């Protein structure tokens, strides 16, 4: 799907070690679509929470948090960047999205390995999360559902997500799956930052085991 006709979806996501009842319910009620595996490299800082910056399949993949509504989040892709990437794009788009000042640039464009080795790994304010995702995808009640085992810098966690263009459908699906209204909606950058100690662990995160 191209960026032009992509309609941002409302999303509710949980992270934790184990969701046996929820997984059982999804298995019973939802239609299984497929398994997918993907490796993503997330770029994170302590500064910003409204941008999701990752590298997938050798491309820069950036999303911005468009809206929070009824406890749901709507993220919009705003750049799928190919490498080599022009320095001007890195300076004007990537680093501002990360919420930190741009470093000094020695090239007019950067290949992926140059970007990582020369701009990312040496920046004391930038942290890298290597993630490997094993995702089971389902459909239910006009929503897309996923149950994903994620390794983050080799440590394991699980995430379950409900998403749809319709926020009503997401809320309805949450209710059908007995997900409490008190459950915290945790997006990927926030979960990664919590694990990597970039943001404080709130009390509710104590319950994730």
């Amino acid at each position, binding site marked *: 799907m191209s960026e032009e006709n992509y309609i941002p979806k409302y999303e509710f996501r949980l992270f934790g070690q184990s969701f046996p009842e929820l997984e059982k319910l999804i298995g019973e009620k939802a239609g299984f679509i497929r398994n997918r595996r993907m490796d993503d490299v997330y770029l994170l800082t302590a500064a910003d929470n409204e941008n999701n910056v990752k590298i997938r399949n050798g491309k820069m993949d950036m999303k911005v948090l468009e809206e929070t509504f009824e406890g749901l989040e709507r993220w919009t892709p705003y750049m799928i960047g190919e490498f080599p990437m022009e320095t001007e794009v890195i300076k004007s788009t990537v680093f501002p999205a990360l919420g930190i000042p741009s470093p000094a640039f020695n090239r007019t464009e950067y290949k992926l390995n140059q970007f990582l080795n020369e701009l990312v790994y040496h920046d004391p304010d930038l942290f890298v999360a290597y993630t490997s995702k094993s995702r089971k995808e389902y459909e239910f009640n006009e929503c897309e559902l996923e149950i994903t085992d994620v390794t983050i810098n*080799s440590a394991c966690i699980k995430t379950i997500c409900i998403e749809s263009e319709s926020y009503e459908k997401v809320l309805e699906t949450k209710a059908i799956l007995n997900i409490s209204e008190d459950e915290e909606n945790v997006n990927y950058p926030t979960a990664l930052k919590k694990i990597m*100690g970039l943001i404080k662990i709130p009390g509710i995160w104590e319950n994730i085991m």
Partner: protein
Amino acid sequence: MAKKEELKIGEISKPRFEFRTFGRDFEEAAFLMSRLSVPVPEKVWERTSEEYYIVSKTNDINNTKIRDGKMDIKTFVQEVDGLEQWNPLMKAEFPISAEILKNEVYPAFMVDVPDFEKDTYSYDEFMEMIKNHPDLQAVKVEKQRFGYMVNDTICEVANVWINGAMVITVNSESTEVEDIKKTITALGLEGVENINYLQAIKRVLGWIDKPLAN
């Protein structure tokens, strides 16, 4: 030949050497450990704990953790045949005096020592200082440990949650290097990288760009 010290789980001995590694899957080593172990005291069958490790960007030789309001710092002594030996450096209970923080704790972190405005610091006050220091990080580590004794070495397999994300660790420790090496072989862990807690935590935090053992 000097008589070997008899190791007892849960009791203090002279400094031990340790092989430890971290990863996602040590099912085979855990199975072998359980089958090769002599019976161990019931108190070590399963132990759980919640600790905070204080990691420092500038230091890999002192290991600081806080459990039940007590601070425990160990220091790296030597490496022999790939096995690490750590010695206790200090133990202190909160509230801790500024004097001890200034002269013992912060030097162990090997970072700039902050100004101390009080004579003593409670646990909460100390953790606030850690939070505000750019080179230090408090990391929540929860452990579920299963103890064994293989080849006269103290062994464990443990589920460990580092800020909520799970890894598995297996270890063998003893005062006798050769006993640990025999145990590594018996558990099928030859060639597996020796990774201590500090290294594992820093890798998960993204401070060290290196994966765990598997």
